[in-house]
């Protein structure tokens, strides 16, 4: 076997475009420097404690060397008692300090890790809504799960262990140089082998381990999907295909395992040969030195034992070095989120009045591919506007512009004369809220799920909000009431209940303008009807822009805007539009027969 080529299929290659930026190496380095500065004291303490532990561990070989010296020159008296007490003291010191090294190492690693993950979430929740809408949350999710996990390994073990390993190796080499300078030269014999071997290995290893880990994750992912889609798999008789897919993924993963095993099959002998070279050359060349009278027997013994001890720190460094390289990639993905701007400049304007206007708005998701062309629409405060039209006409996009999530490419969307795109999300949402199908129920208590809309709310306010959306009944029926744990792992709410919670949040947040995007369309007709009553309460007294898939929503609107191909083709009340006999009239008839 000459070697194993890396497999052609790389499971770590991104399957879809990375939607959020990845930090440049320079940014990552600056971030690491910042982290180290923040934890400088803990780091210095770790190195110091470690130095003491390593020094104490060298006392044993040193004393043994002295004794061998004395015993060899059997004439002299051996101070056995004194030597053994010194040995015992050194052992006690070593024990205490090894304990401290392990503990300090963990404390440091855990603090850095906690900083990293909290910092990342702080950045994530500060992202502009437009970025989230466009990029989706998938990329962000994989960063907070997979990348944080990979970093956890590195921070928990690699950083402290590497710090320990380097200090340890340096001290041993230093001690060797001090006790027997000529022997220190023997160590150099092994350096070329180690350097060449490691360069070869580390050039290939990090990418290979990343692919291997991704390959393994893909095996588990296919199983998770089969479990999740059990009904679909059975109905469509996909069982055999799922098994075949799993076998294919196992093949891909094990091919990477085989490749990394080959990499280690090169690295291990390199390390072993290095050790043997160090140990052997110290022993044999050193033996010749003793015979020549350049060093003493005691120095040789001590030196040989030091050389043997080098095995550990070198092994430690090699073991954790590639973990650190893998972590670097993950870190770049985490730090990348910091590079996203916070959107348009905040000019601090406060809206005067409540009128929402779109003036000659053009907008597109892709360069040179506008979805909206010169759309103008004025929404009178307190009025109901329905946006209707076929899929892909730009209704939802217009809704998002009116809710301040996207900034128009040209033209302006204003609220009370102030440009929405120039306001931070925190200010926009005091006035406008977008209500869509996404009624996420957060892991936590029902109370937390409501409080997010008004952090300082009392329980009384929460109950009246629930009452307003007709949800107080079933919440009261729950044994733990507002303290009931919901979300994944807790009580599973029905879609209708989740939607009611979302509506109750709106009551609490109390924005004067709402943009509804298919807010109830995913629900069963029966539940929808029930919810419409809740919704009606919420809408009372507010300006409403409703994107309607079902025309009965449009029927009651003050103004109906028909969107077609990114333009507003018809505008008027229900009766006016039906009388006009255009697109809306045709739609109405097709629905209402």
């Amino acid at each position, binding site marked *: 076997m000459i070697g194993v080529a890396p497999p052609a299929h790389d499971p770590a290659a991104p399957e*879809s475009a990375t939607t959020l930026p990845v930090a440049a190496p320079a940014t990552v380095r600056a971030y690491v420097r910042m982290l180290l500065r923040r934890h400088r004291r803990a780091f210095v303490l770790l190195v110091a404690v470690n130095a003491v532990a390593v020094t104490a561990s060298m006392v044993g070989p040193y004393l043994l060397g002295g*004794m061998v010296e004395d*015993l060899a020159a059997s004439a002299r008296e*051996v101070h*056995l008692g004194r030597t*053994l007490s010194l*040995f015992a003291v050194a*052992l006690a010191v070593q*024990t205490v300090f090894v*304990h401290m090294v*392990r503990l300090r190492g963990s404390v440091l690693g855990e603090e850095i890790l*906690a900083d990293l*993950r*909290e910092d990342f*979430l702080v950045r994530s*929740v*500060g992202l502009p*809504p437009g970025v989230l809408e466009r990029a*989706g949350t*998938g990329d962000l*999710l994989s960063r907070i*799960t997979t990348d944080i996990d990979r970093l956890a390994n590195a921070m928990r073990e690699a950083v402290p262990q590497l710090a320990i390993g380097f200090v340890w190796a340096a001290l041993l080499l230093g001690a060797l140089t001090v006790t027997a300078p000529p022997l220190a030269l023997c160590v150099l014999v092994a350096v070329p082998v180690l350097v060449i071997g490691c360069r070869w290995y580390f050039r290939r290893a990090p990418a290979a381990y990343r692919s291997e880990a991704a390959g393994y994750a893909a*095996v588990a992912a*296919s199983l*998770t999907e089969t*479990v999740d889609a059990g009904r*679909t798999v*059975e*109905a469509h008789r*996909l*069982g055999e295909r*799922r098994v075949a897919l799993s*076998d294919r993924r196992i*093949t891909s993963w*094990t091919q990477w395992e*085989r490749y990394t095993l080959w990499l*280690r099959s090169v690295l*291990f*002998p390199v390390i072993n040969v290095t050790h043997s070279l160090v140990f*052997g050359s110290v*022993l*044999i060349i050193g*033996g*010749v030195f003793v015979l020549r009278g350049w060093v003493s*027997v005691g120095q*040789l013994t001590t030196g040989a*034992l030091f050389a043997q001890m080098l095995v550990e720190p070198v092994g430690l460094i090699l073991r954790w070095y590639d973990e650190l390289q893998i972590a670097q990639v993950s870190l770049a993905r985490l730090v990348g989120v910091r590079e996203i701007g916070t959107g348009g400049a905040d000019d601090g304007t406060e809206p005067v009045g409540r009128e929402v206007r779109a003036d000659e708005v053009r907008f597109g998701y892709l360069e040179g591919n506008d979805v909206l062309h010169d759309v103008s629409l004025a929404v009178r405060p307190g009025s109901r506007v329905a946006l209707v039209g*076929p899929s892909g006409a730009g209704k939802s996009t217009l809704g998002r512009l009116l809710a301040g999530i996207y900034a128009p490419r040209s033209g302006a969307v204003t609220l009370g004369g102030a440009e929405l795109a120039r306001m931070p999300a*925190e200010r926009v949402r005091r006035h406008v809220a977008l209500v869509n*199908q996404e009624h*996420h129920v*957060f892991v936590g208590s029902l109370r937390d799920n409501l*409080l*997010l*809309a008004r952090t300082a709310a009392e329980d009384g306010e929460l109950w009246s909000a629930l009452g307003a959306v007709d949800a107080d009944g079933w919440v009261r029926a729950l044994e733990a009431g507002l303290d009931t744990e919901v979300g994944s792992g807790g009580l599973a709410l029905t879609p209708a209940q989740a939607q009611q919670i979302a509506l109750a949040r709106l009551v609490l*947040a109390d924005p004067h303008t709402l943009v509804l995007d298919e807010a109830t369309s995913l629900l069963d007709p029966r539940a929808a009807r029930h919810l419409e009553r809740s919704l009606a309460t919420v809408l009372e007294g507010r300006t409403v822009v409703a994107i309607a*898939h079902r025309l009965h929503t449009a029927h009651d609107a003050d103004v109906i805007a028909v969107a077609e191909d990114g333009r507003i083709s018809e505008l008027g009340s229900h009766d006016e539009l039906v009388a006009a006999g255009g697109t809306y009239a045709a739609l109405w008839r*097709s*629905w209402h*027969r």
Partner: protein
Amino acid sequence: MQIRDLPYTDPGRPDTGSGPRLLLWLGRNQLAGQAKAMAWGVVHMAAVAALPVALGIAVQAVVDRSGARLALAGGLMVLLGGLVALGDTMLHRTAVTNWITAAARVQQLLARKTAELGATLTRQVAAGEVVAVSTGDVEKIGWFVEALSRFGSALFTTLAVCVTLVVYQPALGTVIALAVPALVLAVLPLLPPATRRADEQREKAGYATELASDTVAGLRVLRGIGGEELFLDRYRRASQEVRRAAVRSARMWALIAAVQVLLPGLLLIAVVGYGVGLVEDGRVDVGELVTVYGLVTFLLFPLRVFEEIAMAYSFSRPSAARAARVLSLRRTARAGEGEGPAQMPAGDLYDPESGLAAPAGRLTAVVCGDPDAAGRLADRLGGHAAAGAGEAPSALLGGVALDGLPLETARTAVLVQDKDPVLLSGTLAELLDVPASGAVPAEAALAAAQCGDVLTALAQASPDASGDPMRTRITERGRSLSGGQRQRLALARSLVTDPQVLVLDEPTSAVDSHTEARIADGLRALRQGRTTVVFSSSPLLLDRADRVVFVQEGRAVAVGTHRALLRDDPAYRAVVTRETDTGARPAGELDAELTELGESEQIEESA
């Protein structure tokens, strides 16, 4: 078994009686691999153990000023160095091969088991449990399998070293042979609390990760409504708890590390103290003392292996138990487990419990007041019996009970698309590559389900600028698509399958009226001559059905065309139109509506 030969063509039938029995079964299936790893482990450890002998010979040679003996020590060093390198590499290769083959085998077993259980899996066990086996437990089982051979060779080498010491250096050897078991045992009591704390830490970390990913998943809601600080605070608290738990766990491991330094250190002091006396008495050479010192430091190495196996076992036992539990699941005896005739029945579909009948080759719509009941009824039509035995007989196809048929035959005959069909991740081509009759091309199905805008969106996102939507990946559960788009793709998939009987539960609930009307036409045209049942309450769909069955309280109470039912059945009208107060509707309005229906039909016909 070599890694390159994976996956197994047949992963075998595991012994799922208990966790340890599963481990034993895995071990029995790789006896040769374990033996090989153990043999290389002995080569490796014996060579490492022999290094101090070379050291002793060298020191003694120098003391005796013998160049020849020093050369001998050098030769021995070279030989041992080679053996250490060879043994270490081969031990690693063989042991890792053992873990990978075992892990692959368990993953393959899991894949087969989940595919076999299908819809019945989550009824028997939480989905999370199965996923936990695949993501975490397999690795722990693999770890034990890998550590086993290392443990065997460490045990063998340790015994050999102790015996050798006792034989050649009875005085020093006996002390060491007595002390070694004590060293091994001393750390063992510390391991259970350490692993417990590690588990606690993992649990806390899992919770923090869940909080974080949950916050990110709902981030658009948070950014739209507020509450970021609330959730950040909550996450910070969880994160700090993880940190504290990790440090608590580290305290235990630090203690273990300290004990591992202290006890061998004490042994070394004893050996040196006792040994120096022996040297002075002339009973032991200086070189031999150095050898024994070196051997004691060597023994620390197998000691760690002993701890590793103790930990690996304590971690892998619950994992193996969970894996065994999942792998021992069986399909419940009822649903479609029959041994009846394998030939495909044909004819009308009839459910004796509800009295619902769907004539062969026609489009039947079902209106059901209660959505949950609709779901159960749809299930029954596919022969999925409700949970619990001794219930009503299964649905009949052409007079043959569906649950009396082999599962494969029953599912081939009737395809039930439930209310929440899952889009499996993969390219669009892969998504539509399902077992099918072959009569319906993907293009026709996509066109009938009105997927034009989905194709455009996917073409824009195609990975290689080819603009081929069929090669674009659909993310897990179709999260990159809107609800309506997902629904239409799922419908297209069912249409491609082209089963004899297709049962659809609310296939267009997230689709706008305009598109829904076109889907209804497309569906009708494409399913011409095939049996189709649609659960819906949308007038657009109902009006295009050959017949409509109205189900209330689990029984078919009325049958007719949409218009006839609308006219004659107030209860039906209440469910289908959005009027909540049935009686309050003046007859005139209804007449107007019916007139409107007639008009629109005329318009359509003239168009």
